[in-house]
C-alpha cells in the first residue's frame, strides 16, 4: 500500500543547531502515528517542514505519491515547486496548529466555509451545508454564528479541526492538540481524535499524552535532537523501549504522571 | 533647474539662530501645557457634571478646529472683547491651550493603564485623597505619558512655525524675509525645513534616551 505521506531525509538548520537531522517517516492510509519527545526536539519543526510552511534545507516530501514542495527532475536536478503548485496540494494536508490560528474576523461557520469556497471553488450553499454538518458532528451546532473570541478553548479546538476536515484531507496533522486545554476538555478532545481515528482518518499527532498515544496510535515515533530515535507499533514500543534515551523519557513522564494522578 | 546652493548654505546658520526662538517658545508652551493639563485632568476626575460637560464641549471644539484658527481667535478675536495680546503672547496662549487639551486626553488614556489595585490598596491604608494623587497616581501617570510628551513637544515645535502668520519673527518669518530680499524663496524655505528636521530629530533622539534612562532606573 502506498504511503499517504513519505518524508525522506528532512533536515533543517536554524543558526547553528540542527532542528531536523535527517528525518525519515512514512505514514500509511488509515494509520495513526503519534510523535512524541521533549520540547525542542524538533516535533513542531517536522510538522512545519512536512507541510512546507518552512522549507527544509534538505530532503523530500511525497504526498499521496506525488512530490510536494520540491522534486528531483529526470535529469537529477532539484526543482522547487512554485507557490501555486504548493498551495494546490495543501488541501490534502489538514493542519491543526497548536495556536489554532482561527480567523477572528469570521464566525465559526465562516472559518470552516472560507477555505472551501476560495481554495476548492465549491459554491456557497454546498460549502455552508458541509461546514454546518461538520460543526454539528463536533457538537458546535448552536455556535455557528459565534466568533472565535466568544468560544472556549475546547470549542475553538473543534472549529480548527472542522476547518481542516472541510477540505477533505488525506492526512491530518496535529501539533499538540491538548496542550492549551484544561483537564476536562482534554478528555473530550482526545475522545474526538479517537473517533476520527476509528472512522479511518490518517493522522500524525504530535503529543505529550502518552496514555492517549498508547490507546489510539498505531505507531509511535520518538524524536530527540532532530532525529527519530525509535519507532514502532505503539503497544510494543511503549512497553518495551529499546533506546536508552527513549526509556529514560518514558520513565520521566510516567513518574511525573503518577505524581499528578491523571490519565 | 538652477538651485543656488551657496544661498542655501549661507541661510542655514542664520536660520539656525532664528529657530532658537521657536525652541524657547516651545519650551515655555510645553511647561505651561503640562501644568494646565494636570490641573484640567484633576478637575475632570472630580466629575462635576456641569463643569465636565463644558470641558468636554471645549475639548471637542479644540480638537475639531485648526490650530491656525485658534491662533487667529487669540490674536485678532480677543482684542474685540477687550483682551489685547502681543503676537507672542497670543501665540503662546493659543498653542498652550491646544496642547493642554491633547495632553489631558493623553493623561486620560494613561490613567486607564494604571492598576486599580494600587488605588484600592492606598485607600484601604487610609491615605488621604491628596496623597493618593501625589504619591500613587500622578508619578505613574507621568512615567506612562513620557513618550507622548516627547511627541507633543515635536508637535509644539512645529506649531510655532504658524506664528509667522501673526508676525512673530521666528525661523519661518525670517526665511520669508530673506526670500523677499533676494527673490529666491525656495532656497531659504528649504533651509528652514532642514533646520526643523534637525531640531525635531534631535528632540526625538533625546526623548528616547530619556525613556531608556527612566526604564533602566525602574527596572
Amino acid at each position, binding site marked *: 500500500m502506498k504511503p499517504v505521506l513519505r518524508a525522506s531525509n528532512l533536515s533543517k538548520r536554524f543558526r547553528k543547531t540542527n532542528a531536523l537531522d535527517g528525518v525519515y517517516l512514512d505514514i500509511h492510509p488509515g494509520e495513526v502515528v503519534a510523535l512524541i519527545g521533549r520540547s525542542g526536539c524538533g516535533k513542531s519543526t517536522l510538522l512545519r517542514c512536512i507541510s512546507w*510552511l518552512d522549507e527544509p534545507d534538505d530532503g523530500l516530501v511525497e504526498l499521496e505519491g506525488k512530490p510536494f514542495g520540491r522534486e528531483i527532475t529526470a535529469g537529477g536536478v532539484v526543482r522547487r515547486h512554485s507557490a501555486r503548485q504548493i*498551495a*494546490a*496540494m*495543501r488541501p490534502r*494536508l489538514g*493542519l491543526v*496548529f497548536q495556536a489554532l*490560528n482561527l*480567523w477572528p*474576523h469570521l464566525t465559526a461557520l465562516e472559518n470552516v466555509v*472560507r*477555505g472551501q469556497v*476560495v*481554495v*476548492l471553488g465549491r459554491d456557497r450553499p454546498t460549502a455552508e451545508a458541509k461546514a454546518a454538518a461538520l460543526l454539528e458532528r463536533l457538537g458546535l451546532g448552536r455556535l455557528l454564528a459565534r466568533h472565535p473570541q466568544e468560544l472556549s478553548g475546547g470549542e475553538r479546538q473543534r472549529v480548527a479541526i472542522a*476547518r*481542516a476536515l472541510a477540505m477533505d484531507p488525506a492526512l491530518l496533522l496535529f501539533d499538540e492538540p491538548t496542550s492549551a486545554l484544561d483537564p476536562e476538555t482534554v478528555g473530550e478532545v482526545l475522545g474526538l481524535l479517537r473517533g476520527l481515528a476509528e472512522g479511518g482518518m490518517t493522522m500524525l499527532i504530535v503529543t505529550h499524552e502518552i496514555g492517549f498515544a498508547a490507546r489510539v496510535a498505531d505507531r509511535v515515533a520518538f524524536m530527540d535532537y532532530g532525529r527519530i530515535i525509535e519507532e514502532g507499533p505503539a503497544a510494543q514500543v511503549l512497553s518495551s523501549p529499546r533506546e536508552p534515551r527513549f526509556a529514560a523519557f518514558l520513565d520521566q513522564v510516567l513518574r511525573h504522571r503518577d505524581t499528578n494522578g491523571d490519565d | *533647474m538652477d538651485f543656488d546652493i551657496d544661498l542655501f548654505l549661507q541661510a542655514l546658520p542664520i536660520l539656525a539662530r532664528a529657530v532658537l526662538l521657536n525652541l524657547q517658545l516651545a519650551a515655555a508652551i510645553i511647561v505651561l501645557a503640562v501644568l494646565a493639563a494636570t490641573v484640567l*485632568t484633576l478637575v*475632570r*476626575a472630580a*466629575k462635576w*457634571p456641569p463643569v*465636565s460637560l463644558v470641558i468636554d464641549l471645549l475639548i*471637542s471644539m479644540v*480638537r*475639531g*478646529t*485648526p*490650530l*491656525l*484658527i485658534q491662533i*487667529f*481667535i487669540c490674536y*485678532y478675536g480677543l*482684542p*474685540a*472683547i477687550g483682551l489685547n495680546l502681543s503676537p507672542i503672547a497670543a501665540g503662546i496662549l493659543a498653542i498652550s491651550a491646544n496642547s493642554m487639551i491633547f495632553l489631558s486626553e493623553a493623561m486620560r488614556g494613561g*490613567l*486607564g493603564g494604571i492598576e*486599580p489595585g494600587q*488605588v*484600592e490598596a492606598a*485607600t484601604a491604608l487610609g491615605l488621604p485623597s491628596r496623597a493618593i*494623587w501625589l504619591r500613587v497616581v500622578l508619578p505613574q501617570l507621568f512615567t506612562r505619558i513620557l513618550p507622548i510628551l516627547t511627541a507633543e513637544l515635536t508637535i509644539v515645535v*512645529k506649531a510655532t*512655525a*504658524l506664528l509667522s*502668520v501673526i508676525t512673530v519673527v521666528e525661523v*519661518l518669518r525670517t526665511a520669508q524675509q530673506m526670500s523677499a530680499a533676494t527673490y529666491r524663496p*525656495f532656497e531659504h*524655505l*528649504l533651509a528652514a*525645513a532642514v533646520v*526643523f*528636521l534637525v*531640531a*525635531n*530629530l534631535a528632540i526625538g533622539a533625546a526623548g528616547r534616551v530619556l525613556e531608556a534612562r527612566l526604564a533602566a532606573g525602574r527596572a
Partner: protein
Amino acid sequence: MGFDVGVITKHAPALLDGALVTIQITILAFILGYAIGILMAVAALLPGRLPKIVVAAYVGTFRSVPFIITLFVIYYGLPFADIRLPAFMVGVVALAVFSGAYYTEIIRAAVQAVPRGQFDSARAVGMTYPQAMRHVIGPQVVRSVIPASTNTTLSMMKESAVLSSITIGELTYQGLIVQGETFAPFEVFAAVAVLYWTIAIAIAAAARWVEIRAGRAETKAVLRSRVAARYLSLDWRVRR
C-alpha cells in the same frame, strides 16, 4: 460689546463656499495620501534594507517639518522641476505627501501586528498569497487601521487651513477676507471654527460607520472598581 450675528448671516455664503473647498481638498488629499501610505507601507515590508531606509527617510522628514514649510517648499520648488500646477492641486499634493507619512506608519504597524499564525493557517488551507491577503490578513488590518487613520485624516483636514497662505479659497482664506471686510474678527472666526468643527464631526461619524461596516467595533472597557474609578476614570456620565 455684543456678538453681531448679522455679520455672519450676511457673509454666510462666502464662508460656506470656503467650507466646500475645504471638504473637496480633504477628500482628494485623503485618497491620494492613503494611496501613498499603502505603497510606502508595502515597500517598508519588503525584504531588504534599502526600501526600509527610503521609507524611513520619507516618514521621518515629513513628520519633523511643519506642514506650512512643506507646503511652501513644494509650492516654490515645483517650478524648479518645470512642473506648473494650479495652487489647488499644489495644496492637495502637499497635504497628501504630509498625511501619507503618517498613514504609512499606521498601515505598516497594523500589518506587522497581525499574528504570524494567521498567515500560516491561511496557507495551510491552501490559499495563495493574494488570497491570504484578501480573506485573512486584509480584513484584520482594516479593522485595526481605522481609529489611527481617522485621527490623521482629522489632523490633515485641520492643516488644510494653512493652505490659505497660498491663496487657495478654502474656509480660512474666506474667513480672512470676510474679516477684512467686516472688522468683526471674533464673530467671523467663531463662525469659521464652528464650520470646521462640523466637518470634523462629519469625518468622525463617517469613520465610525466604516468601523461598523468593517466588523464589530471594540466595546469600551468598564473600570469595575468603584474606588479606583474615583481617580482613574474621567467618565463622568457613567453611573457608579
